[in-house]
């Protein structure tokens, strides 16, 4: 396994290395000023010839952009149940005498939380100025605090702090035998576009992001669609909490990914591809850029690829800025188009009206890697593994309460129990399959299979041992969705904060049976009536908890008819202080 040391991202390089794009410009400004001054957004509006309101709306949409200065050292602790530990965040806040979300008065440091940063196999983790520090503990926090107080530049910090060494515990179809560079392309040229797409269809490959649309069909629809240009887009916005397998593929198998994208370009007649990388993985940019450069040098990208006359294709990298919704393909395309990541109305689908309104294939990282392997090794090689409806293998990102967190590649059809046995999870009470948007699986259902026809998963497997409070886990997920909702449609924009309100009330021990029923009623509405996949899955954790773990909620309820939504006595605190009163009438029980 290649150990990747993250290079200090120099602001100039980071922008110059990447194509001109609103997200990149804003990131550079954020780096320079630690926020986006209004004057700068006006300048960007002029340089990029975009309306000022578009710039402003983008700044306010993506979590990583701010309007008030953050610290010279900006730390964002993951709040995921696997790579987050907010107790450690509070500990560091104390060490550095800084309040969460408020930049220290000397401007040196700011600390806040952020959604899962994909380091779930590395324990508690944080982002510091776009770089990752994992394996956090009190010792590391002290070390970090000292570096910060002494204003030591990040590149002089102990490199050990930044090392990310992901363990691959089980290799299968894709990871076992790396693909020789160019071999899939050579095979593709031999097959020709039609036969290539047929091969993919025969292989039974379905999208690895979780939704599971047949890849060959997607490519075929796109190929058939009329358009001035066709585009190939790789969705590397791996934002589902608990997933980190794309990070490994991008680190160790980037060539295969780009080969898959290039094969797709050949099949569709596309000339331009984009890799949309989540902002949390920005530290991978130099590595990815280097792989792209190598491929250009080897004639695997560029003009007349591998001597194939007229086949021209290249790939640009676009880096996100903290928005889970951009993992939804149409929101991703909006983001590529320098807008807020709001999911589009469908139909039309991206295969006919995608990037810039042109036919576009959007696939997950793993899908492109698998496609490259299939084109090179044949449909039968792939189809021989997995189940009838779920051919091939799946990379799993396993984290949580187990002894061996890391990457596992299984043929589809493996049971949850098998996975748990292999990763050393002996006392699991529940497993969250497919991340918060997936399914909370009860111990009695550990015999279920990981496959599209049973438990579909984009690869996130989060394990919860007996000592975990599942209500806290579900509360964490519910907060996550309320934070990440794009706000486009009513059910999700208003529903997710309301669900958060009900669940907070219940978790705090102030909920009644009535609150539980109201929460369930609302959860069903949000699930059934929301515009996109985010809203349609946001209530899954609550609904799964109520169905499979009813006692977890029940034992937290008050056995009374009604309980207020807010603390009445606390609501008098301000006026008590202002009037200097503390008599009995100045309180409410």
């Amino acid at each position, binding site marked *: 396994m290649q150990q990747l040391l993250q290079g200090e991202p120099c602001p100039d390089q980071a922008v110059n290395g990447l194509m001109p794009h609103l997200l990149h410009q804003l990131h550079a400004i954020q780096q320079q000023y630690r926020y986006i001054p209004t004057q700068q957004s006006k300048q960007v509006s002029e340089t990029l010839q975009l309306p000022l309101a578009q710039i402003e709306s983008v700044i306010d949409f993506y979590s990583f952009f701010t309007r008030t200065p953050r610290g010279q050292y900006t730390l964002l602790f993951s709040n995921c149940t696997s790579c987050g530990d907010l107790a450690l965040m509070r500990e560091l806040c104390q060490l550095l005498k800084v309040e969460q979300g408020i930049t220290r008065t000397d401007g040196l440091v700011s600390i806040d939380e952020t959604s899962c940063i994909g380091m779930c196999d590395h324990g508690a983790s944080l982002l510091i100025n776009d770089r990752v520090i994992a394996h956090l503990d009190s010792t590391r926090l002290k070390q970090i605090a000292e570096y910060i107080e002494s204003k030591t530049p990040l590149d002089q910090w102990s490199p050990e702090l930044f090392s990310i060494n992901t363990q691959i515990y089980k290799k299968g179809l894709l990871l076992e035998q790396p693909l020789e560079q160019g071999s899939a392309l050579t095979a593709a040229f031999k097959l020709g576009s039609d036969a290539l797409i047929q091969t993919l269809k025969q292989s039974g490959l379905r999208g690895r992001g979780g939704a599971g649309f047949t890849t060959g069909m997607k490519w075929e629809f796109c190929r058939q669609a009329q358009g001035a240009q066709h585009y190939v887009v790789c969705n590397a916005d791996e934002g589902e909490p608990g997933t980190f397998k794309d990070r490994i593929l991008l680190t160790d198998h980037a060539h295969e990914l780009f080969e898959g994208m290039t094969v797709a370009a050949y099949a569709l007649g596309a000339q331009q591809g984009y890799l949309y990388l989540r902002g949390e993985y920005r530290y991978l940019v130099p590595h990815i850029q280097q792989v792209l450069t190598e491929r250009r040098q080897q004639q695997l990208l560029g003009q007349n690829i591998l001597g194939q006359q007229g086949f021209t294709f290249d790939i640009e990298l676009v880096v996100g800025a903290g928005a889970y919704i951009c993992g939804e393909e149409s929101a991703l395309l909006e983001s590529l188009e320098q807008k807020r990541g709001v999911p589009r109305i469908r139909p039309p689908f991206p295969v006919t009206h995608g990037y810039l309104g042109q036919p576009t294939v959007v696939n997950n990282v793993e899908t492109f890697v698998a496609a490259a392997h299939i084109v090179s090794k044949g449909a039968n090689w792939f189809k021989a593994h997995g189940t009838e409806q779920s051919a091939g293998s799946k990379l799993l990102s396993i984290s949580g309460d187990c002894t061996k967190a890391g990457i596992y590649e299984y043929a589809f059809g493996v049971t949850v129990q098998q996975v748990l046995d292999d990763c050393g999870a002996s006392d699991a009470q529940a497993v969250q399959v497919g991340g918060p948007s997936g399914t909370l699986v009860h111990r009695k259902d550990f015999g279920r299979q990981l496959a599209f026809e049973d438990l579909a998963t984009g690869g996130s497997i989060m394990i919860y041992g007996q000592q975990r409070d599942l209500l806290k886990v579900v509360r964490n997920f519910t907060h996550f969705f309320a934070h990440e909702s794009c706000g*486009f449609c009513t059910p999700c*924009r208003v529903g997710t904060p309301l669900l958060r309100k009900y669940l907070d009330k219940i978790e705090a021990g102030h909920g009644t049976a009535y609150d539980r029923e109201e929460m369930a*009623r609302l959860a069903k509405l949000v699930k*059934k009536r929301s515009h996109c996949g985010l809203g349609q899955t946001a209530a899954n954790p609550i609904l799964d908890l109520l169905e499979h773990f009813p006692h977890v909620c029940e034992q937290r309820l008050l056995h009374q008819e009604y309980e207020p939504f807010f603390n009445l006595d606390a609501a008098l605190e301000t006026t008590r202080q202002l009037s200097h009163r503390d008599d009995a009438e100045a309180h409410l029980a």
Partner: protein
Amino acid sequence: MNQLLENTLTIDGQVVPFSAGQTIMDAALAAGIYIPHLCHKPELKPHGSCKLCTVDVDGRSMSACTFPASQGMQVANNTPALTEVRKTLVQMLFVEGNHLCPTCDKTGDCTLQALGYHLGMLDGHFPPFYPRREVDASHPDLILDRDRCIMCGLCVRASQQIDGKNVFALSGRGAQNHVIVNSPSGKLGDSDLNKDDLAAHICPVGAILPKNHGHEVPIGRRTFDLHTVAESDIATFNLHKTEHHDD
């Protein structure tokens, strides 16, 4: 086969013709069938965000204003379950903003309010958010009161698609969504919005209102005091709190 029979769908059992490219909403409006809606105006590109026009198409939930009509489609529209869903959505919009009808000059002419009446909404039901949003009174003829904004995007689209301007945009994320003004200062007075623009009139609630025209029509004689938002067979509303639906 008869061309007419080929291009038909049914809404609550009624056969409705449509032409290629029409949405369910287009077909329904042409046939005089009312499907509740807030963010939709036929002359503008559909947005599909308010979800008031949610219908069940062959058992699946769809937005009538954006979903293409197709042959033989079975659409459920005016059902008790969908009325409950829509009422809940209106309640959610009410608690999300600061909709204090007695204080608003749009009262009686407000589509959100009229939908509340149409759907038999008696209360906001959920704990109110009481957001603090900015009021913009910088324009000589118009006021922008974000407290009442429901994020329908009608002003955004009217400005872009009809007025040939680009005065408004939706900004922010999640519950922090808000409408912003595309001007150097971000203020309405600094924009090229004119009081005769469609964007100045299209707001279905009281978020964009003309200045200097208060209470010209007395309360009790305004649009929705005299007319319902649509013809409806619901004559009375049960006063009970919301029960449910959607199981």
